[in-house]
Structure formats: structure tokens, C-alpha cells
């Protein structure tokens, strides 16, 4: 049985927005699944459907073996969810909030208090436990939100951009908790705009673009699927020189794939080290000067670029449309 399974899952908003345009998922228990996509690609909409908060307008999905539409209650018992905007009640203290959640998950008052205490320790909030949530930093609120998602020992954890807008230390902390939980057997469905995050945490990644999955596999598989090295050249000079350089480089032996990205040109070519000399030569012959040239193994960013035609544009502030 899959932890999360979906077929042709879709959601359309009025008037004519295909936020999620039919995606298939088959995620095995115990995995960390990274759902990668830029602003507006449909990540949150997918999470909200999988967590029973939003009705699909097409297809179906099963989470922990239960249909999200017809058996929402059973799904909710088995999942923990930390949404993109940490949904917290600011007038309560961290301890009160966790105790309340534990009670709503059916625990008695005493047991709920103990569970709250445990969770506060796990997310390093014991000291702030009796302060009101309104006074918590963004990172603390995210940690509290994560703790609230864990009160009932869920089998499957959904995290919607858990580290967007956080400083590197808070981000590390979240990564550590997620890795620990996964080691204890929790399946994690994680959306992110950060390639590094997907690379670091996820055993399997899906790249989402405009409501559809354009690539799926382990980060290694995806990188290997490029099958080439990546040479990035930045020509010197005025606007449009990159286009001209790209034109020129397409004439390289083997006609490699060449893309213009901003003021640079990206060449996908096997054995990149050997290609540097011909690239420099060809450009110089055409009268194009080079400011910068780099050679790299493919990264998830290259996969993303190749599949979607653009770089992932993370908004580090967490601001989003």
C-alpha cells in the first residue's frame, strides 16, 4: 500500500485557473517526498487536497489508504499538517496551544499536558512555553506549528514550505527534526522552493510547473537524466550578446543543447572539461569576449531549468502572491 497515492488529481478555481491540472503520485511509506516548484505552481493547492482541506475538482487521492474525499476523518487521524502560513492562535501560550490540540486529538487533560511538554522539548521551545505565541519569532512559530502537527504521532507528515523565510539556523533545526522523524518511520511530504532543501532531505522529488509534474525521481536520477555536464558562459557586452553567443555555440560539434538564462548562456554537453577550449575558441572567433566561464556537474537547478525553461525563483522573505 502507498502512503500517498493520486491519479489525475486536479483542482480548478473560478474563473478558469487550473491550479493543479491532473497529477499522479505514488509515494511509499517511510519516504521523504520533495515537491518542488516556484510561486503559484500548485504546491499548496495539492497539499490542501491531500489533507482534506480542499475538495478536488478532478481525479482522486488516497492518503494512508483512505480516500481524501469520502473518508476525510480517517485521513485526518493519520496525518500531521504544518501549512504554509503557520496557523496559530496568538493569544494562547505555546503550551496551551499544544495541550488544546492534544485534547482535540482525544487525549485526557493530564496526558495532553505531558504530550505538550514532550513536544516543547523536541522543538526546543520549553523556555518559551509560557509566553504568548504573538511574541514568538517566525522560526519559533514554525517550530510550534510543527509540534502541533505531531501531537498524535501521525504516520504521514505534510509540510508546506516549512523553511521559507527562515534564517539558516532555524532552517537547519527544521531539517534536523524532519530527518529525525523520518528515521522513526514517518512518511514526509514536503513542498519547497529551495533546491538545496529537496536535495538534502528528499529521497524522491517531483518538479511541479504550472499545475503539472514535469519530472519525478530521486535527486540523483534526475541529475543523471541530464546526461551531460553544464558549462555556463557569461559573454561581455551589451544586451543581446548572450543571444548571439548562444547562436554561435549551437554550432559546436554534436550540436549541444544551449539555453539563454539572463545574461548567461548554458551549454549542456558531455565531457564538459574537453568542451571548454572549443567554446572559448568559437566565441573568440565570432568576436565575443567572455567575462566568466564555469563547468559543473548538473544540479537540481539544471534539471529544473531544463524541464521548465526557467530557474526556480525562491522569494527568501517568504512573501508570495
Amino acid at each position, binding site marked *: 500500500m502507498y502512503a500517498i497515492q493520486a491519479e489525475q488529481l486536479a483542482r480548478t478555481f473560478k474563473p478558469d485557473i487550473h491550479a493543479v491540472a491532473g497529477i499522479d503520485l505514488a509515494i511509499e511509506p517511510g519516504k521523504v517526498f520533495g515537491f518542488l516548484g516556484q510561486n503559484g505552481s500548485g504546491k499548496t493547492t495539492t497539499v490542501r487536497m491531500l489533507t482534506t482541506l480542499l475538495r478536488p475538482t478532478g481525479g482522486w487521492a488516497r492518503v494512508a489508504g483512505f480516500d481524501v474525499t469520502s473518508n476525510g476523518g480517517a485521513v485526518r487521524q493519520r496525518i500531521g499538517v504544518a501549512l504554509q502560513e503557520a496557523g*496559530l492562535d496568538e493569544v494562547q501560550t505555546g503550551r496551551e496551544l499544544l495541550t488544546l490540540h492534544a485534547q482535540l*486529538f482525544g487525549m485526557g487533560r493530564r496526558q495532553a499536558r505531558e504530550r505538550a511538554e514532550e513536544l516543547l522539548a523536541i522543538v526546543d521551545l520549553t523556555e518559551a512555553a509560557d509566553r504568548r505565541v504573538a511574541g514568538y519569532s517566525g522560526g519559533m512559530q514554525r517550530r510550534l506549528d510543527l509540534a502541533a502537527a505531531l501531537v498524535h504521532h501521525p504516520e504521514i507528515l505534510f509540510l508546506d514550505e516549512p523553511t521559507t523565510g527562515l534564517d539558516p539556523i532555524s532552517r537547519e533545526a527544521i531539517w534536523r527534526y524532519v530527518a529525525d522523524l523520518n528515521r522513526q518511520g514517518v512518511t514526509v511530504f514536503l513542498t519547497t522552493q529551495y533546491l538545496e532543501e529537496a536535495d538534502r532531505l528528499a529521497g524522491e522529488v517531483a518538479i511541479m510547473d504550472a499545475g503539472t509534474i514535469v519530472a519525478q525521481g530521486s535527486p540523483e536520477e534526475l541529475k543523471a537524466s541530464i546526461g551531460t555536464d553544464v558549462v555556463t558562459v557569461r559573454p561581455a557586452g551589451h544586451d543581446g550578446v548572450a543571444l548571439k553567443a548562444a547562436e554561435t555555440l549551437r554550432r559546436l560539434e554534436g550540436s549541444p543543447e544551449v539555453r539563454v538564462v539572463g545574461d548567461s548562456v548554458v551549454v549542456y554537453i558531455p565531457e564538459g572539461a574537453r568542451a571548454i577550449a572549443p567554446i572559448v575558441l568559437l566565441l573568440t572567433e565570432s568576436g565575443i569576449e567572455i567575462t566568466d566561464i564555469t563547468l559543473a556537474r548538473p544540479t537540481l537547478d539544471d534539471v529544473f531549468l531544463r524541464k521548465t525553461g526557467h530557474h526556480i525563483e525562491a522569494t527568501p522573505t517568504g512573501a508570495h502572491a
Partner: protein
Amino acid sequence: MRLFRDSGILMLRSLRESMRQPAIEIGNLFIPLFFFAVTVGAISSISEQAFGVSNFTGFQLPVAMLQAIAGSAVAGAGIVNDIQKGYFDKLALTPTPRPALVLGRMLADAVRAVVLVGVIIAVGILTGAGMESGPLGALLLLVIAAAFSLSYTGFAVSLALKTGSNQAVQLSFLLFFPLLFLAPAFAPKEVFSGWLEFLATINPVTYILEGSRSLVLNGWEPDRLLKAFAAIAGIAAVTISMTVWAYRTRKV
């Protein structure tokens, strides 16, 4: 079972919230008492000869009560806040029965209403309003307060669920004031002129007001009390249906 337990837990959360924002509750108490003092001060000396009410303090007491109940009906605003903060989703992701999410806040309103009305009755008695029906009557006034609070607050709750917008919730206050002032708030219905009397007759608040008033001024008048509870039940029937409909058709 689960519904009662969880509603109780969520009610306590809501009450904790008001304890932490005491200024709001003080305002909810101050405004009706202020109107009470001003109207009693202005009208009581002429009320006897103008429309035959000798105990105008007692006559006004239920008006202050209803104002306090309306003022403490904040469940709708609270739900809007929860929805906008994303906390409502968080609560909706727990296995708690769906109605508990709104019932918890509504019960908290009822508790606040009972406390405020208790204070207002005490102030009334101290200032000479009297209580012809005795302590049991005062207790029944608290029951009326709780019941009216629950039925009335459901209106804002349904708008909150349906729209998730504060503007919509503000509408419910706009609705209450005409209802209160189209009821015989400052003079008995008998002195109203034609169209006003007609509006007062079809206004459910009229019967809640008259029922409460009968306990203060006259003692036990079962037919008036029955009408008061029938009016509350009528309002409840409307607001409960609205709330259920709002939840069912909530744009998710």
C-alpha cells in the same frame, strides 16, 4: 459525547482569550450601563405621566441586558480571525466534530453574556430596579440571557463561516440595533403609533424584552415568558439553519 467535550474545551480557549483582553469586556459592560444610566436619568421623572411606567429603572434594565448580550456576541468575529490566521484550518484538521468548532465559541459568548447580565442585574437592584419575581426570576433572566446569546450569535457565526470576512460579521450588529429600537425599548408598546406598533409586534426582540421585563416589574407571568422563549426559539431556528447551510456550502 465528543461534541460536548470538545465544545467545552474550545469554549475554555475562547474565554481565556477574553480574559487576556479585559478592555473589551469592560467596554461591553460599560456601554449598556452608560445607556442605562443616561436613559433612566433623562426619562424616569416623566415616564409615569407620559406613558404610565412608574418604575422606569426596572423598565430599562432588560434593555441594558440585551445590549450587553449583543455586545458580547463575538463568536463570529473570533471565527473570522481564526479563518484569516489559518488557525481554523488547523482546528479543522483535528478529529473534533465539526460543529464543536463553532459551538465552542458560541458557548463562550453565552458564558460572557451571563456574567455581564449578572453584573447588570446586580447594578439594577442596587439602583432600585427591583425584582418582583425574586431570586428565581433573576436566575431565569440569566437563562434567557444564555439562550438569547446562543441564538443571536449564530447569525454572525453563519456569516463568518460563509464569507470569512469581518465586514459581513459587522452586518449582524447593524441588524441588531434596529431590532432593539423597533422593540418597545424606551416606552411600552401600547403608546407606539400604527406602523411602529406593527413592526414591534412582528419583532421577536419585543417578546424577549417584554418577557424579561415582566420578571422585573410584575413577577411571574407564564404567558409572557412562554412568548419570550418562543421568540428565542424562532431566532435560533433561523440562525442554526443559516449556520448549517453556511458550513455545508462553505467555499473551501
